[in-house]
């Protein structure tokens, strides 16, 4: 066989190089199961890829929070009545709702053995609030006195490193002064942003190190076995921390988060018993989950809510409240929740979600489907003959927005069309630029489980500039009631004011609530007693191996 030797060698080498490159990966990937497994099969939990490194103050999405929730113990958790109860804190008290004293429970240590002290909280919160560190959860500290000093604005240097309202009185006492009274402060403290950070988290330059973000040292139930390299690793492996002072799981010690890009794939893994807990079942998986998993399928309210947003500020035509009421009554929420979302949503009948204390069933009268009344009201008020419904095409909203448009067309006899935008931000940009003035899709997931969180950030006058009040709704009385609620001495009293504020929204419908989210989870035959808490995290100490 006559072949040019050179060509043969080169072609051969190229093929060999590719083959060797391929084999390299196979070998190293095998390590994953061996390290995670050991003698004990871990409890395997579904997770989406965390958005950023695992740093509490830079984690504002559910996946990263879920992973961090296993590594850290929050100051408060939430009981069956949806009220905040102390966890890592011994007591959280205030006389005037402005100066708060947080006493820490003793016995908590970091996973590297050091004791947890009040200064750890001070360090973490100051770091989070400082604009130079560009932490996405920095805004959580906006109510603490001194936040403004750490956030002088774009391009201006930060002259201090600490907030004056935040002090460690001694190793176990933390004193927090707010700029204004806020009765819900205790409720906020269960959120990821408020976790402390150990000394080991900070590098010589005073910034949280990348190494820490890959393997955070916490003070919670689980300790991470090895660093999690985002983008490469498909699991986060954890072991119960022996010195954890709280309740530990009865008969298991290893936890593994398995990272999936598609929740339906994870569902297949659950069916094949390669996964134990799946807490984000998609609508397409629901019917099979119900029949196959039976009692291992769970369905409970989730704190999210979906609205049709009304651009009051940008479209004077919609300022008449009767028009908004008519639109609201023309929407068949039940069919949308049951058919479009396969039962993974519930029809909305309040601005406060059923998962949170303060919800009142059927509070929103205009949220009941009533096409005849809607048509009468709409015609009498002289509503616009054409309406556009903007939605962001990246989040699976097309179907329900088109269903709403269809409702409006049929029931109000107007020209209603769904209009896609590439991202949610593009809708807002076009509204501001006056290029668009139609209705828009809007959703809200809470930052902390308080009725107040459904009101202030979305509808208060202050939120037009700094919050998520995209419609530009403004009502003095509403703002006053919120302020009263913030200053109230007890939880019950504050809730009373918040509900009065809620009543105003129900009367005026600045947005039209359409559905409440529900959380759909399932678990395998390997585990039992799986409970999902208010923050959508599993109560790990309760889970038992079957």
């Amino acid at each position: 066989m006559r072949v040019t030797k050179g060509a043969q060698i080169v072609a051969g080498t190229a093929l060999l190089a590719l083959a060797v490159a391929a084999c390299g990966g196979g070998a190293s990937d095998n390590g994953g199961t061996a390290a995670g497994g050991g003698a004990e099969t871990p409890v395997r939990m579904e997770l989406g890829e965390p958005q950023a490194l695992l740093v509490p103050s830079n984690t504002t999405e559910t996946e990263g929070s879920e992973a961090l929730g296993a590594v850290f113990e929050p100051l408060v958790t939430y009981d069956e009545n949806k009220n905040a109860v102390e966890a890592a804190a011994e007591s959280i008290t205030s006389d005037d709702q402005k100066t708060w004293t947080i006493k820490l429970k003793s016995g908590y240590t970091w996973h590297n053995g050091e004791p947890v002290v009040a200064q750890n909280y001070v360090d973490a919160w100051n770091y989070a609030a400082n604009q130079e560190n560009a932490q996405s959860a920095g805004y959580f500290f906006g109510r603490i006195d001194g936040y403004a000093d750490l956030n002088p604005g774009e391009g201006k240097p930060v002259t201090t490193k600490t907030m004056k309202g935040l002090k460690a009185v001694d190793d176990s006492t933390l004193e927090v002064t707010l700029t204004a009274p806020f009765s819900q402060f205790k409720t906020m403290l269960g959120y990821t942003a408020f976790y402390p950070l150990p000394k080991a988290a900070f590098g010589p330059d005073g910034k949280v190190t990348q190494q820490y973000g890959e393997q955070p040292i916490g003070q919670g139930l689980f300790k991470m076995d090895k660093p999690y390299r985002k983008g490469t690793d498909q699991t986060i492996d954890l072991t119960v921390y022996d010195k954890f002072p709280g309740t530990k799981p009865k008969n298991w010690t290893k936890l593994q988060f398995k990272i999936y890009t598609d929740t339906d794939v994870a569902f297949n893994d659950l069916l094949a018993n390669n996964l134990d807990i799946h807490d984000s079942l998609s609508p397409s998986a629901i019917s099979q989950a119900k029949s196959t998993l039976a009692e291992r399928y769970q369905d409970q309210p989730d704190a999210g809510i979906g609205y049709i947003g009304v651009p009051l500020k940008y479209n004077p035509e919609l300022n008449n409240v009767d028009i908004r009421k008519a639109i609201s009554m023309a929407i068949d929420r039940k069919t949308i929740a049951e058919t479009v979302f396969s039962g993974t949503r519930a029809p909305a009948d309040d601005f406060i979600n059923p998962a949170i204390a303060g919800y009142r069933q059927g509070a929103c009268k205009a949220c009941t489907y009533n096409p005849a009344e809607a048509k009468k009201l709409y015609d009498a008020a002289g509503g616009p003959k054409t309406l556009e419904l903007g939605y962001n095409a990246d989040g699976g909203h097309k179907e329900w927005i088109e269903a709403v448009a269809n409702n409006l067309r049929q029931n109000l006899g107007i020209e209603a069309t769904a209009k896609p935008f590439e991202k949610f931000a593009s809708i807002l940009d076009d509204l501001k630029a006056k290029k668009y003035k139609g209705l828009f899709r809007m959703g809200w997931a809470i930052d902390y489980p308080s009725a107040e969180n459904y009101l202030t950030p979305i509808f208060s006058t202050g939120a037009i500039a700094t919050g998520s009040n995209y419609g530009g709704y403004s009502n003095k009385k509403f703002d006053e009631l919120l302020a009263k609620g913030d200053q109230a001495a007890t939880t019950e009293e504050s809730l009373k004011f918040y509900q009065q504020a809620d009543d105003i929204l129900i009367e005026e419908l600045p947005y039209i609530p359409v559905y409440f989210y529900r959380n759909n989870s399932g678990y395998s035959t390997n585990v039992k007693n799986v409970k999902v808490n208010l923050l959508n995290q599993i109560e790990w100490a309760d889970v038992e191996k079957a």
Partner: protein
Amino acid sequence: MGRYIIRRLLQSIPVLLGATLLIFTIVFALPGDPIAALAGEKQSNPNLVAILRERYHLNDPLLLQYWHYISGVLFRGDLGINFSEVPVSQLLAGKFQVTLNLALTALIIEALVGVGLGLWAALRRGKATDTMILASTLLLISVPTLVSGFILQYILGVKLKQWTGADIFPIAGIANGLRSYLLPGFVLAGVSIAYLTRLTRTSLAETLRADFIRTATAKGLSRRRVVGRHALRNALIPLITFLGADLGNLMGGAVITERIFNLPGIGLQLFDSVYLREQPVVVGIVTILVLIYIVANLAVDLMYAVLDPRIRYE
């Protein structure tokens, strides 16, 4: 020979620079502010957005941004960082490996099954076997990867495990070593198998009618030797061309397969990064894909010389 290779590699430099600039510009032109989009649907803190825009040089004009990027790559070997502060080189190293494993598994399956079936069909031309193979390739072409992936995953992954208890084909992830790639590799190779089968069949059938085959048969050579040595080797040239070009396609087009089987590869990463407008990541991935196309094409050209001694490169 050596000169030829060096010349080909040098030619690829302007191609690479052009490709990076083009991709960089395209991602730049996408609408919306990538930093503001990081906050999802909540109002992003304008302060934070300003600081991050500054950090990632997003306020600079296009060419200056490109210079920041390309100078980092050329002078410091630094591929930049993405918006969650993970170095692109670290991000891509692991993912690239996954996709390469997947693509090569697919390529091997494709070569074995495709050429095998094509050979069989060509030798049984016009008979029932031939018709059946042609019909089944038609089926493979018409079923989209999305459908075949989910169906095979459900039957071979979920149901087979429920029936037998044995975990033969892992459903998701790469935790089971090279075994993890078998099913996704087959799914990814599906359409190519069909094309390759048809290509092999046609090419071989044509060669079998050539004069030199009649000569070889007349010389008294065995059927095996006539087909294997004389016919197949000559028929291979178009097949090698197809396979070489397909390696790039498989690597770049594995998004759906990677998603179905939860493989953390560059296809998925590319999809996410285009969406998030992470220029360094998108450009990094595309550069690697362009490199692979170049190297694969070079290897194909060199293979011609191996298969057909009349072809020489000077």
